[in-house]
């Protein structure tokens, strides 16, 4: 069964901490994405990557960075966590650009910043 695995289901961090969210996919997909999901706002794209060591800003990149050193791993970094970054974070991957092949999502990381 193909999978996107996010390292933590729940995470509680303090304001100002540096936070790493890890995502690993086992499908040899080229493309990986990080979203945050908030009630009433839907899924908002933070960063995406269409190749190793490549990254592109999404709609809301401020306060975040990413790293893709290997094809299967895409990390989201909160440089200095703030309370407004409390959210559900979803990682996804896809074999092609566009939607024709679909996105496979991880189960999400619910991050609370206190």
């Amino acid at each position: 069964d193909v999978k996107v695995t996010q390292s933590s289901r729940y995470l509680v961090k303090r304001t100002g901490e540096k936070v790493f969210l890890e995502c690993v996919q086992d499908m040899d997909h080229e493309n990986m994405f990080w979203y945050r999901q908030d009630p009433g706002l839907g899924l908002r794209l933070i960063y995406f990557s269409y190749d190793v060591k490549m990254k592109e800003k999404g709609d809301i990149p401020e306060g975040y960075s990413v790293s893709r050193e290997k094809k299967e791993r895409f990390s989201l970094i909160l440089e200095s966590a703030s309370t407004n970054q409390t959210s559900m974070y979803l990682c996804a991957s896809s074999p092609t650009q566009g939607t024709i092949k679909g996105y496979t999502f991880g189960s999400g990381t619910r991050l609370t910043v206190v």
Partner: protein
Amino acid sequence: TQLLEQSPQFLSIQEGENLTVYCNSSSVFSSLQWYRQEPGEGPVLLVTVVTGGEVKKLKRLTFQFGDARKDSSLHITAAQPGDTGLYLCAGAYEDGGSYIPTFGRGTSLIVHP
């Protein structure tokens, strides 16, 4: 700007009722997808529609892609409590040679026994 507008935002119905969820855009999409998300989990792909006017069925779920490829609908017949969840439509738009995914804000469906 929300490229994909979903309606309604919320639906609360009784088991056995029918319902339709809409996904509309002013832009043309080469394909649209529908996902279902259960609480605490990531979205799961239900279907991809590619051809204008296309209709796809998945058991009691019927998906339609508009002729102009700007809108789609999801119809559920005889809803069951197991259909409860957040339904999301998704597409991708081209920007500088890359395809950027975009999602509607979702329709939250509750089916009461």
